């Protein structure tokens, strides 16, 4: 499998996905 960080779009999409995952975890942790 190709490393997503090899392309700029792969890097940006990885960052967006990570943001969504962390946002969901933090929202759960804060009980909001």
């Amino acid at each position, binding site marked *: 499998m190709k*490393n997503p*960080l*090899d392309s*700029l779009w792969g*890097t*940006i999409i*990885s*960052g*967006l996905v*990570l*943001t969504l995952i*962390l*946002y969901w975890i*933090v*929202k759960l*942790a*804060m*009980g*909001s």
Partner: protein
Amino acid sequence: MDFGAFIHYGLVRWLHILAGVMWIGLLYYFNFVQVAALKAAQADSTAPGITRHVAPRALLFFRWAAVVTWLAGATILSNHFLDAFLFQQKVYVPIGVGAWIGTIMLFNVWVLIWPNQKKILGIVQATDEEKNKARRTAFLASRANTALSLPMLFFMVGSGGVFRTTFFGM
């Protein structure tokens, strides 16, 4: 006006943002501009202009802006530093996540990017094989930091005031 609070929450926050813009701005320059420019420059033998005159200067401001950003951020947190980093209070969880990501990015700059860039740019001696390995490691660390900058900036912005209420209802 409380002069201490003015320095702490005003000037240091301003410095944190100024240095952060320089750090992440240069990170985006490397990833969005220089990588592609070097590839094109290698094709017409003009790459030494970038590697000799541009990259070392950009890396100088890049790595020290990272340090100033982190130190100013730690100063702003001050007695809430552990609340944020250890997630000890709910209200400090968003800034804690942002601070952790920023810390990982600072680690990448000083432990993975800069030592390998020194080999690539010939600041320290390295064989061709070591340079190729250094090029890949520095590239991936830089790209990882670009990806990490998205959640880091989200949590920095989303950790205070009206933004925290909007994003986290608290």
